[in-house]
């Protein structure tokens, strides 16, 4: 199993009560709450953590893209990947991912990712996402065009990498007389493509067909297992057997000496992430047209995802297998159990989450590197 250190780079000094009053940390939560003195320190703290992950032997580090939110400070993840490209020596660098429909020029991502692939001499992983619904409010992109823009931008980028230029491209949303980006990617024909999703069946089907690595975002492990089986079924339908290498599970892991200590330490930070930083009204999360009618009907009936939903406690999250928190033995046991249940080749682990300070994060990273990772390097099914 491979271990990636996935950072959301939250503004961990955020006033949680102010976020609660605003009903969301996204879009409408004023950036007056951002203090540049603290923010600058956070960028360095987090980038230092990523470099530490490399030295500890994590297989990769992950960044992602979100806009206008205290949840994550990476509207342009390529800048941060660039900052890491020369200091992270061995680990892969993954951007999971750029939100393609938000772009008015997808070629800029073809260029940016190709530079990163060259800078890292082929240690780069390219992630493509649609972005969550809030992004469409923040960036002024029509959510009803999200799917179509994603497809077009994806096709253009992959073609720009694989096909010698110049060629011209005339789509509905994007038109270019000349497609001829310099540099070309370092990896041939292109960097690996990973596709994170909350579990949309059309995304899973599409990723399986193109043999892209599918990354399941924070979800109960039973749900993760269900979506991974869907991927395997789709792979079979496309005439091949999917390997665990094509499946990645995004989670949070926290390790301390005892179960009790781990839960006590992780609790406020995890609940700040899940209960405050991640929450938003349904209208913000799912703008019209962003998802299909059936899903909208279902969600409207339950009004899931909103602030009015009961916040999840750390116990709920551990019980559902969204996160793993505990002593080294507990974490090894759970991870092995979940690996047997869902089958995945990579964990994308948030070692820092919510409001967690630097010392705790580093202790957690070191514990994972020493107590967990070595046990999953061979024969994952008999680990623990």
């Amino acid at each position, binding site marked *: 199993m491979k271990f990636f250190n996935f950072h959301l780079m939250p503004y961990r000094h955020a006033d949680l009560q102010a976020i609660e009053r605003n009903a969301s940390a996204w879009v409408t939560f004023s950036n007056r709450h951002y203090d540049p003195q603290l923010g600058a320190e956070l960028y360095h703290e987090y980038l230092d953590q990523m470099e530490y992950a490399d030295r500890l032997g994590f297989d990769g580090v992950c960044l992602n893209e979100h806009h206008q939110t205290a949840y994550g400070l990476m509207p342009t993840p390529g800048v941060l990947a660039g900052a890491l490209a020369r200091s992270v020596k061995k680990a892969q660098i993954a951007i999971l991912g750029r939100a393609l429909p938000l772009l008015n020029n997808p070629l800029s991502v073809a260029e940016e990712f190709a530079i990163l692939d060259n800078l890292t001499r082929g240690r780069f992983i390219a992630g493509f996402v649609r972005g969550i619904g809030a992004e*469409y409010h923040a960036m002024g992109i029509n959510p009803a065009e999200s799917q179509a823009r994603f497809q077009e931008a994806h096709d253009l980028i992959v073609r720009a990498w694989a096909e010698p230029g110049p060629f011209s491209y005339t789509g509905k949303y994007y038109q270019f007389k000349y497609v001829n980006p310099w540099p070309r990617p370092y990896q041939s024909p292109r960097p690996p493509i990973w596709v994170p999703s909350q579990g949309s069946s059309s995304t899973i089907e599409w990723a399986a067909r193109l043999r892209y690595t599918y990354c399941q975002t924070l979800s109960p492990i039973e749900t993760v297992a269900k979506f991974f089986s869907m991927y395997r079924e789709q792979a079979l339908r496309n005439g091949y057997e999917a390997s665990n290498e094509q499946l990645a599970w995004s989670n949070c892991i926290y390790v301390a000496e005892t179960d009790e200590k781990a839960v006590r330490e992780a609790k406020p930070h995890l609940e700040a992430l899940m209960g405050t930083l991640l929450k938003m009204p349904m209208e913000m999360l799912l703008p019209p047209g962003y998802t299909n009618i059936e899903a909208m009907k279902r969600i409207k009936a339950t009004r899931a995802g909103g602030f009015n939903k009961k916040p999840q406690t750390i116990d709920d999250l551990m019980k559902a297998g969204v996160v793993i928190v505990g002593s080294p033995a507990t974490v090894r046991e759970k991870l092995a159990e979940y690996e047997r249940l869902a089958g995945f080749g990579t964990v994308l682990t948030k070692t820092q989450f919510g409001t967690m300070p630097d010392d705790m994060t580093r202790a957690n990273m070191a514990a994972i590197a020493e107590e967990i990772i070595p046990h999953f390097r061979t024969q994952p099914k008999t680990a623990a």
Partner: protein
Amino acid sequence: MNQPSASTMRVRDTDFRVDQYGAGSTTLLFLHGSDGRESWGEVPGRLAGGARCLVPEHPGYGGTDAPAWLDNVADLANFYLEFIERQSLGRVHLVGHDLGGWIAAEMAVRNSSALASLTLVSAQGIHVEDVPVVDVFLRTDEELWTDSVFDAALARELAGAPRSDAQDLAAIRNKEVTARLTWQPRAHDPHLAKWLHRISVPTLVAWGAEDRILPPAYAEAWAGRVAGAERQDIARCGHLPALEKPAELASAIAQFTSSSRSHNA
């Protein structure tokens, strides 16, 4: 109250529903807003004495599939101009509310000769700087009723009205098509305002005096851009005059269209 006869019309490859109230040589064509055909309430029925009132449902609304060609408001403007020609409706009195007002203005810019008059009710389509408007896409359904209706008791009544699954589904689809048409730039076309001087038919700008979705400053801006436009403010009324003040709106439209009929004659 006057009951409509519903029929399915076809323009090019697209079937759509058109309700007809009354009959006569004069035609009023009602273009509905984001909330769909039903948001005209009793207004077309009230105007059906002596005129034919046509209330189409925009393709993609009311639970119908959005046609592949539907990307923007100009598409619907061309669609309805084609409808008027194909049905040989003659010069119609065009009445548009909210999104329908935007479509109507776009039609009038493109071809005023298809029209006898233009009535814009709480119309989208232009932008007025520094006037706070409601972000309708960030409001819950309940909040939207409160934002849209001046009378709080009526807002509660409308919000609490029982709805069938089919109506819920239609509402979700209406919102999706509305987003497709109005999300960005939000509820306007920056290129429309510069051609509004081309509107050469009598124009009425009718507005709820307490409209919070598009405040009366928008009425003023429309009236200032369309030559000779008349204004009719409706007191104690929000963004949905057809539901909140149907008698007042119907009477304003009746007076205006009959006087512009005599102008044209």
